[in-house]
């Protein structure tokens, strides 16, 4: 079994395989990454840090591109960004 890492997504603990990005963890938790300016829930598109659709607040830092950040134990992830 691969090792797992626990992160906190919007207050709930989610376990993912070690090495997974935050975008993957959020997708596995069946959450959207952000809400668009007209209120649409959005998920990642490009997977490579270009489109900014996966942006969210990670450890208090807004505008973090979750597809380029690997999950670390205890990370605090919030997906309430516009």
């Amino acid at each position, binding site marked *: 079994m691969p090792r797992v890492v626990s992160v906190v997504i919007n207050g709930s603990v989610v376990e993912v395989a070690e090495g*997974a990005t935050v975008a*993957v963890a959020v997708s596995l938790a069946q959450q*959207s990454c952000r809400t668009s300016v007209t209120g649409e*829930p959005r998920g990642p*598109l*490009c*997977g490579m*840090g270009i489109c*900014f659709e996966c942006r969210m607040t990670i450890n208090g830092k807004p505008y973090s591109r979750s*597809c380029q950040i690997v999950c670390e134990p205890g990370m605090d992830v919030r997906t309430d960004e516009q």
Partner: protein
Amino acid sequence: MSSRDQLRYDVLVVGGGPAGLAAAVRAAESGMRVAIADDNFKLGGQIWRAAVDGENAEAAPWVKRLQRANVTVLCGLRIFDQPYNGLLLAESLDDVCELRYEKLVVTTGARERFLPFPGWTLANVFGAGGLQAMVKSGLPIHGKRVVVAGTGPLLLAVAAYLRRHGAEILLICEQASASALARFAVTLMQQPEKLTQALQLRKELAGVALSTSTWPLAAHGNHVLESVTISKRERSQTLGCDYLACGFHLVPNTELAALLGCKIDGGFVQVDEHQQTSVPGVFSSGEPTGIGGVELSLVEGEIAGLMAAGKSDVARRLFSKRARARRLAKALERAFRLRPELTTLPSGDTLVCRCEDVPFSRLRTYGSWRAAKLQTRCGMGACQGRVCGPATEFLFNWKPESVRPPISPVRLASLATIVGASESVHSGLSGGH
């Protein structure tokens, strides 16, 4: 303001894909003090992403040489400004650093071209390379139903990769015609290594349907993708699926080169036979200079690295190899040209700019990218037009505008460093570009 590292290199390479690795290796092996910077957390670029740990036979020798040549690896750094020649500012997760260089090699790669169609903003509609990147980053794909659509050889590579990881590939939709693909195959046959790769892909995709002259019309679902309707040789068909991986070939990342003042023509960074841009001391290789794939990127990277180290005699010996690889680039461009029918994909309420949620109906009345930006905020959001720019160029023939720093969104504290760095410019140095 956060503390700042000051780093100085003979040769700085920006972009850690094949072109960047080759450039860094060749320059460092020639005795230069070299660093390679990338905004991802690992080297390899998109094509060798997660393959640089030794699993990829093609990437492994370059990574080994990079380590042996003592190249400094700077991952997770996003360059956002050049206050003056020879100094770049970059932002990491929690800091800003100054990168000083004598010679610069811009190997910033390419991104996928996305075209808007109804439903393309639903969750689980990804770029083709986008879904692959997510799977490489840990997204489980086993048993999932995937439709792969768009254009270009990337579709096949992505489909094969996803299938290897247990995905059920329902269909590969290629917008190019069968005859265009046949002509492309003829070019491949002239390049043994490419032909071997193509045959390997074909073997891996045995039993998977590839449909030419086929493209997505609409994605459906309630916030999350449930199905996709495609146009298959003028008939529509709807397929239930978990993921749509959809990309329309590649567009070069030229923002950094443009910021540095390098001449850009037809969307590509202009270089001479030495991979030298119009700005002295600045070289560029790989996709920014023309979409040509790994082989071309590697040989162009080698030439740039050698030239940055002043080894033009060694670089010259690689010119014929480069000429051969460029033939493929030309064939790619011909074969996967976008068909005009794709301009009719968006309906009035289809969002073209996903950052500012600007629908197609609001854009089509404007005559230029600039007018549309000013009136609708199209392209003014977080991605700075990296997604909707290439789309509106195709849909409306709008030309992109000059870039301005910061070339990617940065924290306010990082912006403050632009002011700090400008103040430290001595008189006589150029302060602009």
